[in-house]
């Protein structure tokens, strides 16, 4: 039942480069040599690590919940079209990622480390060289292949039940960028003050993977690269094309900002027409849900039924249904509202 869709995206950012246009942060801690499973979560809290794959959960809690995992999965399967920051971190900062992965594996007692990456022959070959000690698992270049649920499905061989978490199966899934931050803290004693991200403006063909300090504003980034941003024509999307949110020029870069995309407004604009009942949303949904029936029920306020609850809690708001709907119905926004009815 779990399927992904192909999104044509002309040029993604080059994953071989990773620039640091801003001055590197200074060493604050002394770094640690011995990793003690008891004090490590507290250390993560101290450096201020949260899930940097977009989740934003405190990493210490996640590690604590996962303390009996047998396998650590490094999630480098980014599937948001156009962005390639996970790849470039994997290639350019392999030292930190590996250190972070080793530390996390030790803390939770994992005996095996799996590196999940996107399938791209060139890239996989390089990753093989850098991470020969890990098992490498490649995923299709499609959306939403990087969702935890789909990775788990591949690992366990069956569809995970709705509402389950990876640790129930003994897997700890950590994002590449989070692991990089862990490694950075252990090796160099630098807390989470920088964020690798993809900055892109497709209309001018500008794509770059850069490391920026957390907390600077988007306009600073725009000025740095002299991007011709015009708030009337363009919009700034925080964290991707599929699941992103529109943010303003003065917003700051957070720890969870995966990418900053400057897109043309009219490309994204959709005029809502009546639903033609084509069923494309149902066909495209990676989980085989019925987005339109859900939406209809939410709009009419009939959110009581068991079937509704079952489907609603399964949906992970990936946005595929909205993207494919020929009538431009804002399905995923309605579904987001529906999540609150649960």
């Amino acid at each position: 039942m779990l399927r992904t869709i192909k999104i044509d995206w002309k040029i993604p950012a080059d994953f071989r480069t990773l620039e640091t246009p801003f001055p590197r942060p200074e060493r604050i801690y002394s770094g640690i040599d011995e990793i003690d499973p008891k004090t490590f979560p507290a250390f993560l809290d101290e450096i201020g690590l949260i899930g940097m794959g977009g989740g934003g959960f405190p990493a210490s809690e996640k590690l604590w919940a996962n303390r009996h995992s047998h396998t650590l999965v490094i999630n480098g399967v980014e599937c948001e079209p156009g962005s390639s920051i996970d790849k470039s971190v994997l290639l350019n900062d392999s030292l930190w990622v590996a250190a972070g992965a080793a530390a996390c594996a030790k803390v939770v007692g994992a005996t095996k480390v799996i590196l999940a990456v996107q399938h791209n022959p060139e890239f996989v070959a390089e990753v093989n060289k850098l991470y020969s000690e890990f098992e490498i698992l490649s995923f299709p270049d499609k959306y939403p292949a990087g969702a935890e649920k789909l990775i788990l499905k591949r690992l366990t061989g069956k569809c995970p039940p709705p509402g389950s978490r990876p640790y129930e199966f003994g897997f700890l899934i950590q994002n590449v960028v989070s692991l990089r931050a862990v490694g950075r803290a252990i090796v160099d004693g630098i807390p989470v003050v920088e964020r690798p991200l993809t900055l892109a403006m497709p209309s001018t063909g500008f794509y770059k993977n850069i490391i920026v300090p957390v907390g600077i504003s988007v306009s600073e980034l725009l000025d740095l690269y002299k991007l011709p941003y015009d708030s009337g024509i363009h919009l700034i999307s925080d964290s991707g094309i599929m699941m992103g949110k529109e943010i303003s020029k003065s917003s700051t870069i957070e720890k969870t900002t995966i990418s900053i995309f400057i897109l043309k407004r009219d490309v994204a604009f959709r005029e809502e027409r009546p639903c033609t009942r084509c069923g494309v949303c149902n066909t495209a949904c990676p989980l085989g849900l019925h987005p339109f029936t859900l939406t209809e029920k939410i709009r009419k306020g009939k959110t009581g039924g068991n079937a509704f609850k079952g489907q609603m809690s399964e949906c992970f708001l990936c946005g595929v249904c909205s993207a494919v709907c020929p009538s431009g119905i804002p399905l995923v926004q309605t579904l987001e509202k529906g999540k609150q009815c649960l």
Partner: protein
Amino acid sequence: MSVQSPFIRIGSRSSAMAAWAMLALLVPCSIYSALYDSTFVWRLIGYALLGMMAETVYTLIVKRKRRLVCMGSGFTAALIAASVPPTMPFLPMLFSILIAVWIVKLPMVGSPLRFNAAMVGRLFLMLVYPAQTVNWGTPTVDVISTATPQELYRSEGFPLEWSEWLFSKIDGTWEGLFLLVPGSPGETFPLLILLLGGLLCWKGIIGWRIPLFFLLSFSITSAVFGNSLLFNLLSAAILFSAVFIVADPVSTPMSKSGQMICGLIIGISNALIREFTFYTEAIVYAVLLGNLCAPLLDHLAFEVRGKQLQRRMRQSARD
């Protein structure tokens, strides 16, 4: 102009879908027109414009909005025109288009139960003007009373070459009566229509589920009654209906499983009606029956999937 994520759109847009289907429909119709009846394709386009105008008037009066290009209704009108004999006079056509657009198509937008507008228009013609609806040219041979064309084929053998299935004018006793395949202008070139159907599927205009299940169940059911598969598939509008009528997204279920079952229902009932009654145009009733089941099928599909998920959720909670 506010926008919301996802900031990307994949696949076709509904405003263009009907236009593509319309183009596809024009292909067999213009070939037919070139071979047999040069004015036909212009009449077809005229009817399509009429359909569009009907929708424009409707939206102007009911919704107080001005909309000039209404491809959906144009396509409906063209479908009616392509599925009745070219000798159909203007007045009945006008009535049926107005009924299809004003009574069936537009007011039903958004309601769970929707009928295929072209088929309702067709049904109206069949009931009110039966003489013109079955008039496939001058009845020169006394086979007009045969229940189904398969019997005709069977008694005559199957004298056609493969290449003739695509285009080429056919001579012989069937000329003017049944053409290559008995049917109306749009239904004349089975293989071409199959090809177009494939194209439309590939473009994402129509789904493959309903047509495929329709064709499969139809062939199997007719085979059970001992009719030859090929004759059945190529005769009387089966492929035409599979591509242009059954696959209509508006009136069929939207869930995947619902679509498959709907295809089955239409196919089986079509074969049954053909076998046991004297209607050669059983497709109209079969499609309307399928439309009737659509809301139920959608509801069932939703409930079943939801229950399935809930069961799995409870199971995992127990473990």
